[in-house]
């Protein structure tokens, strides 16, 4: 799917043209103008304020405009070395960051952990120091252990962008989900909208990051799944995300009733081995997102999935390609959001941002 395919939808909601006044002209390098973004690193979304989220959205609009050009490339970050260090297998997130960096004219180095000295037992700290010595300005990393990007940020002189850490956070995914939802919601507002995250929240960094961003934008957020995969979330919901309440339930009918959007999460086969679920078949029967179940939701419900999908398990194949599905738009928006994040972080470096 190209930017072309999705542009119509975003433009019709007015998202592309509504670039806020404080969003920089992204053709120019960020050091030539102040960027109102204070963070040197993007490790989590829990500390992002609503104005900062709005700035990411506005900058993403500007990047969508770049993507709509015949040659979707600007010289904004020319000479910036972006190193992508992934300790977990990933296709879409890694490629999305790579495309985003190249669209901004960055030099990109890809390191897959299995083919580097990591497999020889080198520590993360040593690996990051080596990457810095090789000239990296920005480090995009994915890691299986929650919190690992904080360790990298402690020793790396440039900016660290968390591409997903353990069960903890997936900031760029949550921001592209937010962007996609806003571009599809009438008026671009999530205020009071019922959004359901469905499935394995326990092991999901996507769910955790979306809890912060969606509640920050005023959504009526529901987390739904088998109780074994919601462990600990009731304790969180009781306090809310920085006090912003959300709902946790195992009752899928209650969750889907009148929903404005549903995001299905991937189910891993390992969950059966660890005794958290009886079988994939039972999961699909009880929590799979089917057309029949979607009847309880609003007629124009937005269907999302962070990918990769197990079609026929957490989401029916026909639902994935249903007109209400924005799954491919999520992928396209992912490039624009990641361009925006790279741009904003580079700007923070030039203007003395804090960690």
């Amino acid at each position, binding site marked *: 799917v190209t930017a072309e395919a999705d542009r119509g939808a975003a433009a019709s909601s007015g998202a592309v043209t509504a670039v806020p006044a404080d969003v920089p002209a992204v053709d120019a390098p960020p050091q030539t103008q102040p960027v109102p973004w204070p963070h040197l690193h993007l490790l989590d979304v829990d500390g992002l304020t609503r104005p900062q989220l709005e700035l990411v959205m506005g900058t993403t609009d500007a990047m969508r405009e770049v993507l709509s050009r015949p040659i979707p490339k600007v010289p904004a970050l020319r000479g910036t070395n972006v190193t992508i260090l992934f300790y977990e297998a990933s296709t879409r997130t890694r490629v999305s960051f790579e495309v985003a960096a190249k669209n901004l004219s960055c030099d990109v180095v890809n390191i897959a952990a299995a083919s580097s000295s990591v497999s020889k037992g080198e520590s993360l700290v040593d690996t990051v120091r080596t990457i810095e010595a090789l000239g990296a300005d920005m480090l995009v990393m994915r890691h299986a252990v929650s919190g690992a990007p904080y360790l990298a940020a402690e020793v790396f002189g440039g900016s660290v962008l968390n591409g997903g850490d*353990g*069960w903890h956070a997936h900031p760029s995914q949550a921001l592209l989900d937010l962007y996609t939802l806003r571009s599809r919601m009438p008026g671009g507002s999530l205020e009071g909208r019922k959004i359901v995250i469905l499935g394995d929240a326990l092991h999901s960094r996507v769910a955790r990051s979306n809890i912060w961003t969606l509640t920050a934008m005023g959504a009526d957020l529901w987390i739904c799944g088998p109780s074994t995969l919601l462990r600990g979330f009731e304790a969180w919901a009781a306090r809310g995300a920085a006090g912003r309440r959300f709902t946790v339930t195992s009752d899928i009918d209650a969750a889907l009733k009148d929903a404005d959007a549903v995001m299905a999460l991937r189910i891993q086969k390992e969950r059966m081995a660890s005794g958290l679920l009886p079988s994939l078949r039972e999961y699909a029967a009880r929590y799979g997102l089917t057309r029949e179940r979607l009847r309880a939701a609003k007629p124009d419900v937005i269907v999302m999935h962070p990918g990769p999908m197990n079609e026929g398990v957490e989401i029916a194949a026909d639902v994935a390609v249903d007109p209400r599905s924005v799954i491919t738009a999520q992928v396209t928006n992912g490039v624009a959001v990641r361009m925006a994040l790279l741009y904003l972080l580079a700007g923070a470096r030039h203007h003395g941002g804090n960690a």
Partner: protein
Amino acid sequence: VSDIASDLVLRGWAVDPAAGREGPAELAVRDGVLERVTWLAGDDAHGIDDRGTLILPGLVDMHAHFREPGNEDAETVATGQAAAAHGGFTTVAVMPNTTPAIDDPSVVARVRAAAVASGSPVRVLVHGAVTVGRGGETLAPLGELAEAGVAGFSDDGSPVHAAALLRNALAYAGALGLPIIDHPEDPSLTKGAEASEGYVASVLGLKGWPVAGEAGAVARAIAVLSDTVADVPGAHLHLTHVSTAASLAHVRAAKAAGLPVTCDVTPHHIAFTDEWIAGARRWAWEALDADGAARDPWTDGALVAAPFDASLRVNPPLRSAVEAAACLAALADGTADAIATDHAPHTEVDKHVEFGWAINGISGIELALPIVLAAVDAGRVPLARVVEAMTTGPARILGERQGVKPGLREGAPADLVVVDRAATWTVAPERLLSKGRNTPLLGRELRGVVRLTLAGGRVAYSAD
């Protein structure tokens, strides 16, 4: 020997749990002997209170890791003794999870020899393993280890997995007059766990270590003990580093029923909480609201440090402020017999890594006293009770046969610590004598400075 403590006169607030007494006192030490203890009153006591200089019996730590043999890059017996003296401890019992494990008299002898060779007067007691290689399969030679002088038996770092084996160990060790020091944990509930199950772990995406993982093991061990004492009245179960209200309720009930069970709590479980992993650094008792519930660090501005500091990874994990308060309450009411440091020094290589891959443990023997004094300062526990839990409490568990008799006794070798309770110091790597700098308190200003530690009549540590 030049380090014999001679011709010292000490004035301050003395606390002597052995005599059941505290107050202004003057102590005279000559040629290593505590020659005179004079309790002061009236004008003689003028200007002395419990906020200034404290004089305490030498502290006793019944649970520390000195890493020798096998992991001398993390700690040695000699550096452990130096760190202990800096922390005010004059007697330390070391755990047998070394390489090789202390499951044979020859390893006991080796640790003892290291303690003598160091020249330190800090007394090192040795716990033997319950099972061969701490493997949880077959009993170690408990009788031979007892003859070699071990203070107790523990597979610490791991529980004694099988209830049947725990039962045999309690009976066999009981007949030898020695305690089984159990690390209560049900591994089926804690496999891969990174942080205490609950709010903080949920937000941070860390695998939860549930309360039941400890409380279930405590209940089981107490049930096994209950069966055992019928046959072996000398059986003694000690539960170490207990960290939850539910576990402590089981211990409280067992004690009320007259069972020979004791337990300890650690300074970090009474003063640190799981919210520190998110970046908070306030003491546990400062993290409670007026109703006794844990406050939310994400809403009240308490997150001041970077999250996922691996120095906070410890087993059992740091708990919520509510659980920490229960540990402190158990200390105050005597359910917890002792404060044990679980001093667990580690190298940078093992600790400066991803949180979930960091080895468990906090280096704590040098900071234990300032931490518990902070709880005293906050009015959470009386000073005399804390001193008891760091002297006579653990000494009773380790037993008279080890010759550990903390107290300010005239005519005995001087074994005491002088603490300037009003003075502050900033924790920094170069100020720690342990090789393990794995503490979340680096950079923190603490109140309570150890000025002088005398062990067995000799100067073990002097700040001057």
